[in-house]
């Protein structure tokens, strides 16, 4: 792999620390201004590797790696770094808590007006967004995990109080974010005849069969998911709609809307302050669904369970979220893989029920497809089909197939894919819009994830080649020169025809690149694939080598010089090593066995040299 997570993450840390840590204090902000999402992303650039990769841990300065500490030089000494992180995290939580103690999850400067020139009203800027719930879950989990370890090292009472205070505040924000996600879940039920229904049927009907038949099959395929939605989803939003599914000819979709759904009921849990009324349309957005799923995955991760990061109330909420996670994942996998012939997923670009087409959506859906494939242990053949789709997305978005023209296909990189947030106008003001431009890092992360799942060496290396190409692309897009050197994003670095030059960092983008590097480090840390072929070859080589070795020992005098005895001893040790490594590292065993054979042959050749001369 060309991706070298350790080196690249350390470079990124150096730049982040230098840029963020000014005059002894953490400074928020970036290209898109400070808001509850961007600020969390900025902190996660440091905290995500520090909590997800053991090598990068900062919570215990006693065992932190030296190069890791050196990279954060700008934040002070090994003793100061964790303390300053604690303070930066507290600063974040305080910034996004209302005077009455209610956590704020506003989109603020990430919101754009739906029509150019329209003026966003202040109360609209304060609207809560699913992106903020999700990133807060990730950041707060990382924070609590960090403080849990760090407080065991701390002895100073003042510092202990500070750490405990942060942990309390982070836990409250975590609960509030989970409540937010539970109130943003959307179930959209529609008739097969209306616009939504027609779009959905057209998308899934890849073999062009009669509509009535397809609708019936689709209803059958979704019946179980719907039954669980109806029976098990009992709190938060999305509880009322699923009953309508029993009416004839009804279809539905589920996932996360952009914010708290209109008329979403409040949720009873520990104190999370005011639960604000919802504004968002009751329909899933693919982007926010993906973002929410990622956060929920973190809630049920091994780390979260092992460290016991959730309290009792949070465990309950997490269970409810996990249920929605599974249903949503199954739903989209069912749609994307519907039918006997070509999967709807393979029909690029994906077309949403409101009639918008984009390769980016294909990428989002394939992510859910893969998550489902992990759950159902899908065979390599199915995984390979998704791999083909990812390659196709890379081509079509001009990452692997480059052109020199300024074509519309580049819009997804810059300015990005824009969609309107329906319902945002009900807060008073114009409709708001959201822009996403993270197709490249997301594609890389999905590619790495999928590569890690493949057991077939050839298919895996094909995907890793794609990952290398994607990384080269991302590498070209990093900012150069100045304080932001080595951070992201400079789209013109990969596409010179884009006439745009940024000097400020986009934390949104940089954090997504960090996610890729973290994923890459997980993949690299897994044991290499074991080739059966190599194991067989190693076994055969060992048979010959051992036989020759035994003959060497039997037929030649034990009364010989030191160097020959030493050589034979070394060969014996190497043979033992090759035998021991054969199962785990067959390639290593082959190499060692070959070396042994060569050395034994050199001895035998030397003995043969006596024949001619005697």
């Amino acid at each position, binding site marked *: 792999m060309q991706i070298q997570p350790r080196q690249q993450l350390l470079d990124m840390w150096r730049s982040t620390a230098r840029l963020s840590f000014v005059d002894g204090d953490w400074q928020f902000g970036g290209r898109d201004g400070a808001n509850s999402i961007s600020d969390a992303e900025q902190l996660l650039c440091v905290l995500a590797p520090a909590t997800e990769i053991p090598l990068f841990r900062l919570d*215990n*300065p*006693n*065992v*932190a*790696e030296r190069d890791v500490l050196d990279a954060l030089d700008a934040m002070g*000494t*090994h003793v100061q770094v964790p303390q300053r992180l604690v303070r930066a995290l507290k600063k974040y939580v305080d910034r996004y808590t209302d005077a009455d103690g209610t956590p704020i999850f506003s989109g603020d400067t990430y919101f754009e007006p739906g029509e150019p020139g329209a003026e966003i009203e202040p109360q609209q800027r304060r609207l809560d967004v699913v992106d903020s719930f999700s990133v807060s879950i990730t950041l707060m989990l990382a924070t609590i995990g960090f403080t849990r370890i760090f407080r065991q090292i701390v002895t*100073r009472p003042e*510092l202990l109080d500070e750490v405990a205070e942060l942990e309390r505040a982070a836990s409250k924000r975590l609960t509030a974010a989970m409540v937010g996600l539970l109130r943003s879940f959307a179930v959209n039920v529609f008739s097969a005849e209306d616009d939504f229904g027609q779009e959905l049927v057209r998308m899934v009907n890849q073999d062009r069969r009669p509509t009535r038949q397809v609708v019936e099959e689709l209803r059958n395929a979704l019946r179980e998911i719907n039954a669980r939605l109806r029976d098990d989803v009992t709190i938060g939003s999305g509880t009322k709609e699923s009953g309508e599914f029993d009416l004839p000819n009804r279809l539905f979709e589920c996932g996360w809307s952009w914010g708290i759904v209109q008329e979403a009921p409040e949720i009873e849990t520990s104190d999370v302050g005011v639960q604000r009324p919802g504004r968002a349309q009751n329909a899933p957005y693919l982007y926010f669904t993906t973002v929410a799923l990622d956060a929920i995955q973190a809630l049920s991760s091994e780390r979260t369970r092992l460290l016991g990061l959730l309290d009792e109330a949070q465990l309950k909420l997490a269970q409810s979220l996990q249920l929605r996670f599974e249903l949503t994942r199954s739903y989209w996998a069912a749609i994307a893989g519907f039918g006997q012939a070509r999967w709807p997923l393979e029909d690029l670009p994906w077309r949403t029920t409101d009639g918008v087409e984009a390769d980016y959506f294909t990428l989002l859906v394939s992510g859910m497809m893969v998550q489902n494939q992990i759950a159902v242990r899908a065979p390599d053949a199915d995984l390979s089909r998704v791999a083909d789709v990812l390659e196709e997305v890379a081509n079509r978005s001009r990452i692997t197939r480059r052109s020199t023209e300024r074509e519309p296909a580049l819009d997804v990189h810059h300015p990005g894919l824009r969609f309107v947030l329906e319902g945002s106008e009900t807060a008073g003001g114009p409709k708001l819009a959201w822009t996403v431009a993270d197709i490249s890092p997301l594609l890389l992360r999905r590619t790495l994830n999928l590569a890690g799942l493949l057991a077939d060496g050839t298919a895996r290396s094909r995907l890793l080649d794609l990952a290398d190409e994607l990384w080269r692309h991302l590498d070209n897009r990093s900012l150069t020169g100045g304080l932001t050197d080595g951070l992201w994003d400079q789209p013109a670095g990969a596409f010179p025809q884009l006439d745009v030059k940024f000097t400020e960092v986009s934390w949104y983008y940089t954090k997504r690149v960090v996610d890729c590097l973290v994923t890459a480090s997980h993949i690299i840390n897994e044991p290499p694939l074991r080739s059966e072929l190599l194991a067989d070859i190693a076994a055969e080589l060992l048979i010959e080598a051992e036989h020759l070795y035994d003959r060497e020992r039997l037929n030649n005098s034990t009364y010989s010089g030191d160097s020959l005895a030493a050589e034979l001893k070394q060969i014996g040790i190497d043979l033992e090593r090759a035998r021991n490594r054969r199962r785990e590292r067959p390639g290593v065993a082959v190499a060692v066995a070959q070396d042994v054979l060569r050395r034994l042959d050199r001895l035998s050749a030397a003995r043969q040299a006596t024949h001619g001369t005697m």
Partner: protein
Amino acid sequence: MLIFATSDKGGTGRSVTSCNLAYRTALDGKDCVYLDFDFGSPTSGAIFELPEVLAGVAGGGLHDFFLGRAEEPLRIDVWAESERDVLLTRPAGAGMLTLVPGDRGGSEFRATAEMVERCVRLFRRAEDEFDLAVVDLSAGRSYATEIALAATAHPDMAGVDARWLVFHRWTRQHIIAAAGLVQGPHGLLEAGRARGHDPAALRRAVRFVRTAVLDPAAPSQTGLRPEQLAWLDRTDRGLHELAGAQGVGRSVVLGEIPLDPVLQWREQLLSNQDVMLHGTANQESVTAFEQLAKRLFDDEAWLGL
């Protein structure tokens, strides 16, 4: 400020590092005094290269002072007496560098209340007259340490900044020994409590200094084979884990002194000339001494976690 230098084992480089700290601090313009409390073996004169007092003075040193045979212990101006070329004249801007030596042939003695009173007087004068007083205690649990603990707990010493440096080499045995010296039975904290110290406060005043550390990344280690470096890296990580578990981890470390060939063969002050002119010592060692000398006075470095 009073700095007490101690170590569990001998051969940790406690004295040579302490002397270098005093030297670096003096070069930085602060007045320094070095009190040789290694009563069994008062050899700091050798490090400062004072030919008359290689192993202590003939009389009037710290032994005589404690035993009541001298009213004031002898003081030696290192800048004036040393034979070392770079010590011959006091560099412009440098502070005083004074040695208070022990007596030749003197040995350890049991502390009496009167000795503690004398010791308090000695420390108070050092505190008044100098910016830094380095008190070099002998290795292990010694009478010198007991006197120092008793003196620093004395009411007259209230308000005097007393800090402790524990030197240990970067090996398994030394890590465990250093941890034991501080936290173990009859260790510094326990002995301190018996003498009237608040153990929590005393613990906050203790920092560790790792000596003769083999830094795999240092240019001077280029001779090591790749296998040795790979092994060294793992061993180093294991030592960090051990140190963390023993309570002598990085968060309580004030400095690290790399392994230096010059110091290995000859305990001496490392001058800038040893690096620049003679090329015998490594720049890393001098930098480490400088940094450590600075951190002595950096309150945040002592704040800890």
